[in-house]
């Protein structure tokens, strides 16, 4: 279980790979060292043994030859020195034979041969000593016969000595061949284990490379997509990826999801804003249209009033001249009163319309206020984005650290770790890219925030302007009420008067009297109409200003939308 857990992280895999390679190399080294030391010590032992045996057999052969030579010499010389030399040589043979027989490296056959040499040496020495005794007693013929009898064991002695040397040489030849065979076998073992280790290392290396390479490529791809603004969910697949990369992948998934959510929200908000601004714009246009209509009407009214006033002045002169004495009669007064009521109704109708316009303005004001609130919300959201960007930055800095550690581990692993070093470098670059992407996101978010705050401030300005516009509209409504009332009265009265003037010349004098009052009122009316026109113009300008603000809002919303549209969600 623990081993499987260890395999789930990059670090674990690196360690497992290193351990696997060492586990292969250690037996190779052990077998190699063991084989070398065994072979070396065996060679040493065998050579030392061979050297000792050869030295002893060579010494033995020499001593045997000395013994025989001095023994033969004594038969003719019979001096004490030769006797001593013979004894010394015999003692040497005895000594060497004993040493040889006790050599531990001697084979069984050779040991028995050494034992036989001892017996033969005893015989040779005794037979010569016996021959010497006979010779000393002045009996040369039996002495020579006895000496001759010593030659058989002496020859045998020489042969046995040579046989030992030969047997030993053969034995060591066989040992050398055996050693060679053993070395070959061990070499094959070492080679087999080496090949096995190499195959194992390669398998582990490739497996490790694959297990790391694919996830890193996928993560890189995901990071590149994020950098290009593609925030669509594309899971970095593979449950088999190392722990650290899996964590990174999950973190990137989360970053993507959060960014996706934020951008979607942003787009939605900007859509809302654009919609609101569109509404605002439409209302402003309607207002502008109605204001312009009012203005046109007023201009016409004003022109009519002027013309009327002129006509009235002329007719008044004539009426005054014609029927200065014409007085107001009660019918006309009743008609005028009835007309006044009509005018009052009309004016009330206009006043309602203006009131509706004012309430529309109030609605616009509340819409603008809600847009401002939403812009503030947007600003708060951008702070949340900052937090996530911070998270990404932390992850990338940890990944960077991790990559550095991996590079150090790889350097420790030496030549074998160079592949891991490349991987570590890749991981580090990925971390850098993540950090850069995070920085870019930070910049974007800051830009969004800046612009959002601009929108917010614009909204505040718009709100106050809309408020002012409302007040103006209310004032205009009131003025309009009066104007409409007056205009309708005038119109109706004028029409009545004209009809009366045309229909009843007799009533002209009365009319003339009435006209005087009417002319005064008409002058008043004209001034009022001018006043209304000015107010209406003023309202138009405000409405245009509002329309311009609405357009600006629309443009800003479009920009916001375009910015958000840069992200694919």
């Amino acid at each position, binding site marked *: 279980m623990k081993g499987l857990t260890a395999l789930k992280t990059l670090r674990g895999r690196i360690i497992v790979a290193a351990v696997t390679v060492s586990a292969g190399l250690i037996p190779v080294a052990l077998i190699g060292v063991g084989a070398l030391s065994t072979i070396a010590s065996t060679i040493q032992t065998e050579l030392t043994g061979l050297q000792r045996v050869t030295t002893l057999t060579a010494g033995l052969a020499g001593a045997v030859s000395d013994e025989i030579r001095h023994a033969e010499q004594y038969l003719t010389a019979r001096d004490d020195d030769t006797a001593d030399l013979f004894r010394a040589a015999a003692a040497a043979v005895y000594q060497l034979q004993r040493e040889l027989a006790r050599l531990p490296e001697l084979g069984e056959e050779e*040991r*028995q041969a050494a*034992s036989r040499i001892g017996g033969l040496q*005893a015989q040779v020495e005794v037979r010569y000593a016996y021959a010497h*005794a006979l010779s000393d*007693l002045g009996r040369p013929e039996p002495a020579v016969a006895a000496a001759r009898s010593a030659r058989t064991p002496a020859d045998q002695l020489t042969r046995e000595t040579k046989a030992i040397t030969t047997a030993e040489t053969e034995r060591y030849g066989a040992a050398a061949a055996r050693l060679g065979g053993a070395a070959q076998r061990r070499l094959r073992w070492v080679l087999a284990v080496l090949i096995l280790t190499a195959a194992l290392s390669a398998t582990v290396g490739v497996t490790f490379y694959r297990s790391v390479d694919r996830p890193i490529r996928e993560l890189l791809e995901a990071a590149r997509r994020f950098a290009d603004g593609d925030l669509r969910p594309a899971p970095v697949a593979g449950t088999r990826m190392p722990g650290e990369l899996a964590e990174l992948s999950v973190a990137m998934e989360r970053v993507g999801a959060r960014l996706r959510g934020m951008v979607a929200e942003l787009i939605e908000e900007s859509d809302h804003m654009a919609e609101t601004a569109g509404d605002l714009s439409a209302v402003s246009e309607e207002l502008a249209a109605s204001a312009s209509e009012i203005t046109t009407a007023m201009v016409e009214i004003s022109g009519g009033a002027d013309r009327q006033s002129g006509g009235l002045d002329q007719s008044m002169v004539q009426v005054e001249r014609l029927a200065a004495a014409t007085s107001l009669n009660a019918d006309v007064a009743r008609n005028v009163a009835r007309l006044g009521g009509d005018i009052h109704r009309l004016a009330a109708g206009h006043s309602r319309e203006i009131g509706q316009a004012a309430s529309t303005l109030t609605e616009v004001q509340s819409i603008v206020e809600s847009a401002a609130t939403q812009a503030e919300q947007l600003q708060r959201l951008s702070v949340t984005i900052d937090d996530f960007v911070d998270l990404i930055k932390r992850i990338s800095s940890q990944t960077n650290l991790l990559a550095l550690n991996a590079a150090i581990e790889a350097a420790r692993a030496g030549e074998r770790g160079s592949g891991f070093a490349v991987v570590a470098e890749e991981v580090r670059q990925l971390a850098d890219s993540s950090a850069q992407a995070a920085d870019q996101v930070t910049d974007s978010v800051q830009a969004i925030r800046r612009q959002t705050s601009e929108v917010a401030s614009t909204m505040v300005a718009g709100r106050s302007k809309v408020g002012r516009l409302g007040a103006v509209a209310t004032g205009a409504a009131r003025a309009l009420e009066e104007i409409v009332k007056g205009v309708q009265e005038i119109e109706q009265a004028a029409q009545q008067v004209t009809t009366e003037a045309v229909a009843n010349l007799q009533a002209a004098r009365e009319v003339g009297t009435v006209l005087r009052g009417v002319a005064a009122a008409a002058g008043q009316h004209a001034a009022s109409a001018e006043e209304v026109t000015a107010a209406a113009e003023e309202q138009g300008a405000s409405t245009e200003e509002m329309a311009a603000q609405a357009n600006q809002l629309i443009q800003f919303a479009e920009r916001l939308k375009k910015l958000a549209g840069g992200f694919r969600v």
Partner: protein
Amino acid sequence: MLPPDVTRSGRPSTARPPRRSRIGLVAGLTLAAACGGSDPIRIGLTGPFEEPRAQSLRLAVELAVREINDSGGVRGRPLELVIEDDHGNAERAVETARRFYADPAVVAVVGHLASGTTLAASSVYNGGLNPLPVISPSASSPVLTDAGPYTFRVCPTDLVHGTRLAAWATAQLRATRAAVLYLNDDYGRGVRSVFIREFTGRNGQIVADDPYLEDLPSFLPYLERIRRRGGADVLLIAGTRTGAERILATLDSATLRPAVMGGDGLAGIEAAGAAAEGVFISTAYLPDRPGTRNAAFVRAYRAAYPKQDPDHRGAAGYDAIHLLARAIAEAGADRAKVRDYLATVGTSTPAFEGVTGRIAFDEHGDVPDKDVVIGLVHGGRLVTAPERRP
């Protein structure tokens, strides 16, 4: 494996396959063992049992085994002797040692009788993975000191014999001229060289120093040459009883009458009749050695083998068996444990008080404390030689 014995030996007696003789002996001794049931503990016994010099060894060892088995064996198990004949020959001794070694039930060996055979066989006993402890009753060559950690002996070395003989010759026999005839093997050479060194060290003169083998045509030329050189006060025979008997028989022909002396190789010569009378023999043991243990042993020996006395080999073999019984009882029936125990006898464990005296091993498996006595063949028996009053 080695070829069969028959092909190696010229002697007709060796044609008898040793294995058959061994089985026969084993069966007989197992029956003699009074302890039933448990597996017997095997102890090897070897020597040249066809020769008279090895008879006492075999009889005394068999006596010791009987005594031990009669009293309940060792650790409740009877001892069983496995007897092999080494024919007094180094090659055959090696073969014998191999057979003992190959039988894992054999925990120790008593043998071989002579220095040459013990030395040759020691390479087998001390080698291999499961070395076998061996106690020689009578191999006295100084060379044996370094034969190996599994080789022990319960007799003094030739150095002690040679020294004691030279001292006796000069102090007791007042000899100034000595002739030496030595058997040309490890034993003979050992006794001879120490004697010559010690005798010349006491201002003695060596007038002859001649080697022989049992197949020497005649000792007469050596003896005649000694006479021509002016004779000798003492003649040292550094060899065995066989050669010594021939030399004694030849002395009259050479008209020589020196005092004759020899090492323990001459033991048994007292049975050779009048010619052997008056011969001095250095020996680690004499039946008339004082002490109750020895008296009991001699009594038991004479009871078992009427009209016979134990020699130094028999007494030493008897001690070796009792010592091994103690070692097995203390350490267990295991080769290495027996060896390790023997090595401590006289140091960390008490010395063994045997019929031949006190046995305390030194680091070479020798018994340096043991001395030899000079015996004299008198009336057909070997008795302690009387010392001349100064």
